[in-house]
């Protein structure tokens, strides 16, 4: 039993295991995308699936994202349960019309008569010098347009449970995995994302944030890889006597406003950590919720730590300067505490 409960997985393995379980359980589920077949997905999200399920259920595509993502939507409307991979979220612009004018809106435009139960999984995130077209997070943009659920796991346990839930959801779900959390071996990966993962199937409801660390002085609201930076900052802050609560949103749509607010009512101080661009995105939305619904509790100005409205640069010192870091988070925590 000790061994059973202590099986640790990387996030990549957790994702492919989740897909495997659902493919085994439901013959309508299939995977489509570039290099998802024999290669197993550039980021390992489909490792082993081609061997197990063959080319009819694990389908390599041409580099025609509009066609194959739109086709996935069409197949979903006809009763299949596609999981389709957009290799990097940065490429969304070649297929965005199919995604946001159709996949996201058809349920509404049809008055509820058409559904697209579909998972659009995609890699995001910086930290390995792949520059401006391969390093973004962009989840805020997808959360802005109505009709897509937006899932951003920060560790293997959540990755598996959220993936299974996403596959079963009757709606289109954008599922983002951060390249730097996957445990790929050939890329730096956060050990904190490697956690115990049960072998069996389980789900995590969409729209429920996770308080990954309790605290009383400051709330950090964050998501994805930044959860671990936030926890690091919280650990350092603890040494200085500052008690930081870290809220991992896990999904942006639905957004767990309740958890954010109850944390704020306890701590009275808010720092938002976001690997997306600073302006007009997630960090603004969370701050706005605070300004609308918890203003009387706020004892210090809100602080946002995000990418400072520049494309992601290539060179290491430049990239490291723009991606939110533990010291920058700590500065923000200190600022709101000392205010």
């Amino acid at each position, binding site marked *: 039993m000790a061994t059973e409960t202590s099986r640790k997985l990387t996030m990549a393995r957790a994702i492919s295991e989740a897909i495997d379980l659902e493919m085994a359980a439901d013959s309508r589920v299939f995977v489509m995308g570039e290099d998802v077949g024999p290669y197993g997905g550039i980021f390992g999200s489909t490792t082993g699936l081609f061997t197990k399920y063959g080319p*009819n259920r694990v389908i390599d595509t041409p580099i025609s994202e509009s066609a194959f993502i739109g086709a996935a939507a069409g197949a979903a409307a006809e009763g299949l349960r596609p999981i389709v991979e957009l290799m990097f979220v940065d490429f969304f612009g070649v297929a965005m019309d199919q995604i946001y004018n159709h996949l996201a809106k058809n349920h509404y435009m049809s008055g509820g008569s058409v559904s697209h139960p579909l998972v659009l999984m995609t890699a995001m995130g910086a930290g390995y010098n792949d520059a401006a077209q391969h390093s973004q997070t962009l989840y805020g943009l997808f959360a802005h347009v109505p009709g897509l659920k937006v899932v951003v796991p920060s560790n293997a346990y959540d990755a598996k449970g959220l993936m299974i839930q996403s596959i079963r959801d009757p709606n289109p779900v954008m599922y983002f995995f951060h390249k730097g959390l996957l445990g790929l071996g050939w890329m730096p990966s956060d050990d904190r994302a490697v956690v115990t993962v049960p072998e069996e199937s389980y789900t995590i409801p969409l*729209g429920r944030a996770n308080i990954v660390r309790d605290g009383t002085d400051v709330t950090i609201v964050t998501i994805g890889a930044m959860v671990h930076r936030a926890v690091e900052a919280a650990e350092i802050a603890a040494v200085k006597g500052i008690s930081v609560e870290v809220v991992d949103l896990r999904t942006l749509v639905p957004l767990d406003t309740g958890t954010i607010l109850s944390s704020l009512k306890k701590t009275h101080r808010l720092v938002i950590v976001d690997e997306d661009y600073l302006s007009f995105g997630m960090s603004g939305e969370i701050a706005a919720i605070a300004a609308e619904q918890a203003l009387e509790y706020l004892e210090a100005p809100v602080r946002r730590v995000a990418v400072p409205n520049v494309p992601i640069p290539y060179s290491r010192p430049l990239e490291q300067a723009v991606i939110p870091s533990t010291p920058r988070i700590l500065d923000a925590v200190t600022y709101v505490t000392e205010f």
Partner: protein
Amino acid sequence: MDSKQAVFMYEQMLLIRRYEDQMAQIYTEGKSPLFSIAAGPVPGEMHLAAGQEPVAVGIGIHLRNDDAVTAPHRPHHIAIAKGVDLNRMTAEIFGRVDGLSHGKGGHMHLFDPQVHFSCSGIVGAGFPPALGAALAMKRQGSDRVAVAFAGEGAANQGTFHESLNLASLWKLPVVFIIEDNHYAISVPKSESTAVSRNSERAAAYNIPGVYIRDNDVVAIYEAGKEAIDRARRGDGPSLIEIETTRLYGHFQGDAEAYLAQGEKDEWRHHDPIPRFRDLLLANGWLDSATDQDIQTRVNARVDEAVGFARKSPEPMPEDALTDVFAETGKEAI
């Protein structure tokens, strides 16, 4: 084509024409003295397909209820030929609660899952979902097929290329129909398209390509049958481009100043409906009494649909907040 089919197609063409003519009329209600797109019982853009009946009917005759169709922003003729519920479609265009989408979609967003029909206001957007429907059908082991309709202007959108390639590669049961009505809004085909016939592009995807001249419903019927049978047999996709004519403007309110003098008169004189009627009469498949009956029936059908729509209440403002997500809808806000 036997006489029964021919007469059925004729009746459908009349139904479509009557529908579009009625819609053109209704659309003006409440919009005078000054034309205002936002006023009256039917607001928003209105793209009518009078003149393009042969395309919808010559293809639609080969389709079953369980076959899928995607249509573009100019969808009425295709919807009618596919058997979309005319009452609910009309109510949708009127923005009423009994509409197909309870008023959320409107004229460019007609969805009738009963007959696997959908459309979109984005040019070229219907190709990929048709692929997807065909993929589902193939995987499900059925002999269903999908048909994507689009204008000649849409054939220069990237989705056309990506979709035809993928359809051919995966040998999907899908047929691509290009309605060449000579214009994309004001831009003539010669100023948008580097080849004179999109059917020539079929070779770029290793699939059959056919061009049909002259809005000829009989030729459309034949080519449609071949392509759809082929898809149903599992032999893969085809591309058919059909020369047709847009008897109204691009949308209602279009002054069509870009047309050459007399260009439209030519189209009107070459109206496919009287031409088909003459053929049926000549073949002895139709007599004028039957023709009269059909006209009466068709008019009544359109009147019924319009009556249904007018009777239906408007949706309640708070209904705007539902249907963003399936299930509870409570995530909508």
